């Protein structure tokens, strides 16, 4: 119970960091997953799901009004699935749940943005009259909505994680296969992100140099 509460509070911090407070990148899955792993006493599980989901996050470009997945909340739910279980068996299921929760977080952000716009529209006369208190109220309201989104999505993720952990969804061989498929998807998504944003003509040389250096390290290590 105390683990769930700690994860829920961590989810609130992570969820608010995504857009509303600071954007210090605490919401990146590498950070959110690692800390979630420490909170539940299995740092290895948090790091593993954090690494996989961080690769997915490399394809996100949060420009303008674009909606993007909340991989931080996804990493917390994924860690809750993978903690205490053998990595090969739990990684795939954890990552799938993490992606579902990330998508729920994205939808939640869309609802919050619509609610913020609706609240602003109802206050148009006061804003046109230059009422400073209305500005503060609207801003605080947006913050509360985003906090509620983070708590609801994180709570939903943790509830689903508890269901996944208590249900034998698949045999061991299938679970291992799912893990390999998810790792493959993550690598492919990261490669797509690298090509999409940094692989333009002027940076192709830098990307190629990085890949060559990475392959060299893999061969040496």
């Amino acid at each position: 119970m105390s683990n769930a509460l700690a994860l829920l509070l961590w989810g609130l911090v992570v969820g608010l960091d995504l857009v509303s407070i600071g954007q210090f990148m605490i919401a990146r899955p590498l950070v959110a997953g690692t800390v979630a792993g420490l909170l539940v006493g299995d740092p290895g599980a948090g790091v593993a799901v954090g690494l996989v989901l961080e690769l997915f996050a490399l394809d996100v470009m949060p420009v303008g009004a674009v909606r993007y997945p909340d991989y931080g909340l996804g990493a917390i739910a994924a860690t809750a699935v993978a903690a205490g279980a053998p990595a090969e068996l739990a990684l795939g299921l954890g990552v799938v749940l993490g992606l579902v929760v990330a998508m729920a977080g994205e939808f939640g952000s869309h609802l919050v943005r619509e609610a913020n716009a609706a609240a602003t529209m109802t206050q148009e006369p006061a804003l046109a009259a230059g009422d400073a208190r209305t500005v503060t109220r609207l801003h605080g309201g947006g913050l509360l909505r985003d906090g509620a989104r983070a708590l609801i999505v994180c709570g939903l993720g943790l509830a689903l994680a508890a269901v996944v952990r208590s249900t034998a969804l698949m045999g061991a061989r299938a679970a291992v296969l799912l893990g390999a498929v998810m790792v493959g998807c993550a690598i492919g998504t990261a490669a797509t992100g690298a090509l999409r944003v940094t692989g333009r003509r002027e940076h192709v040389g830098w990307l190629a140099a990085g890949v060559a250096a990475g392959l060299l390290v893999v061969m040496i290590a």
Partner: protein
Amino acid sequence: MSAGLRAAFWRTLLIQASWGYDRMIGIGMAYAMRPLLPTDPSTGAASPDVIARSAGFFNAHPYLAGVAVGALSRAEVDGVGSEQLARLRAALSGPLGSIGDRLFWGGLLRAASGLGLIVAALASAPWAVAVFLLSYNIPHLFVRRWAIAAGWREGASVSRALSGFVLRGAVVWAQRLAALTVGMAVPIVAATLLRPYTGSLVGGALAVALAVTVAGRWLAPTLGGMRLALLAGGAALLGGALWP
């Protein structure tokens, strides 16, 4: 930094809290500008006209929005006319979004993420988190602080600060660094994640990676890696349910 500028700086950290589809960060701009706006000596509050203007539509990168917060507030203090203020507000929105997106989302964030992934795969995760957060947030907070100070200093002439060589150079180098570190991180992290698997599973995972890359980059670029993975995961779950 004066007390008003410091207060406005802290408020810019929350500038996106009321993000909405109609005014985007307009309400956040009004909230952040409040400590810098001229006040009526009789009431001690900012004039309603100024508050109403400051809450209009605005969109920019959140880290560089401080430039607009400072510049528009200074222009209000300097008594610049409302038409010129509206033009300044409109003129700042595009460049502050474009430069910030390329510098941070396309450059520094990917570079720091790549660095964090490499450290996590080769050393330890707590170190990776520290390296990632420090390498990202030191420049991030420096730019935020510079942004509001430059805007406040330059006022309506703030475009000078944005056209500086340092900022343009930073965008180019951040993107080069991002390409280098992400390129390096992908094979290193892939090798780490595939280590527990053997033989055909490693080949299968790499085939999936290639398929997702081709689909995500060329065949269905709007679908995104997450949705492709959910489709693949759904198929694997279904297969798993039928495979004892």
